[in-house]
């Protein structure tokens, strides 16, 4: 983790201040395996790549009143939706291939 470029990391405290939320919320997300928090020199950081996901969780929890169990379930279902959407793209490509073969 120490080798990670600082640009790729966002201070957890800064994120919480900017979003007006408690750091305990991030800890809860981490405990439930929804995000990863890195510790460097006793400071907590989240990867920049996780930012969109993290902001989604903030919306769910604070704006939509969805509790952590709900977020966990939604997160799992959204992952399934993404996998299924990717699968649909692959199947569409296959279908288009066989259509072209049949008419070719």
């Amino acid at each position, binding site marked *: 983790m120490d080798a990670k470029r600082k640009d790729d990391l966002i201070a957890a405290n800064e994120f919480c201040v900017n979003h007006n939320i408690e750091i305990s919320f991030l800890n809860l997300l981490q405990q439930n395996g929804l995000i990863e928090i890195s510790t460097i020199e006793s400071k907590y950081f989240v990867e920049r790549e996780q930012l969109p996901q993290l902001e989604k969780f903030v919306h769910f929890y604070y*704006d939509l009143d969805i509790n952590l169990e709900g977020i966990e379930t939604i997160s799992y279902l959204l992952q399934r939706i*993404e996998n299924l959407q990717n699968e649909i*793209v692959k199947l569409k*490509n296959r279908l288009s*291939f066989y259509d*072209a*073969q049949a008419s070719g």
Partner: protein
Amino acid sequence: MTFIDYYKILGIEKKASAIDIKSAYRKLARKYHPDLNPNDADAKKNFQQINEANEVLSDPEKRKKYDKYGKDWQHAEQFENAEHYKEQSSDFHGQKYSRAQSGGDFSDFFESMFGGSANAGRNRQVKFRGEDYNAQLQLSLTDAYKTHKQTLTVNGRNIRITIPAGIENGQKIKISGHGGPGINGGPNGDLYITFSIANHPGINRLGNDLYIQVDIELYTAVLGGEITIDTLSGKVKINVKPETQNGSKVKLKGKGFPVYKTHGQFGDLYITYRVKIPTNLTERQKSLFTELSKS
């Protein structure tokens, strides 16, 4: 520009309390929030509508103005001017805190009645990542075969991107930081580009493999010979084996499509032979075939 019934959008009555509005908004937001409905344009549109309805009805000032004028919203400006002097003596509007929501676009009706974006003044203390943008880019199969650069114009900004060879139809790539601008110094959103790759006449692609059909003369099929075919990487010479059957397939290893982001690695090219039966035979040719059939 038509009147929008915000009460109807939230499914509440005109006398609804602030709690009713909040509850109705949250219920619908949970249903239509874009984060909960990925790649669903209808949900995004619905979310924008309920967000706008909530923006108006949860703000006592806006709700008052909306209720007073309703369908006569065109006269709202006169109301504004008249009220302006009254408000100058009062400087408290309440520093409302609300997180930025995706889908902050407002209708013409809203803009006309309440002015610019409602987000403009309410997130002073909070930084937010900008909105993610989605775009679609059409490529030909030939374009997708080679790594190349393209310049896109997204919201008036030119972005030069490198498209790696081997990209698939329907594949989505993320261009970090090229989405909507961050709010109050927050980072920019990302740009997601979905590629749509057009079919190429005569060449079919499945993953990294390419499939083509090649016509060969009957004589070449029977006796064997050399033919030259066109592929995406140029002309290729192939030896056709004697007694090649119609519909038989051969595989040319490594002559298919480049493997995405894997330099020097390619799929295979599958060739299906279609044997052409000669037509308009001369008498001499017919007699030779007859002789052949008796042998």
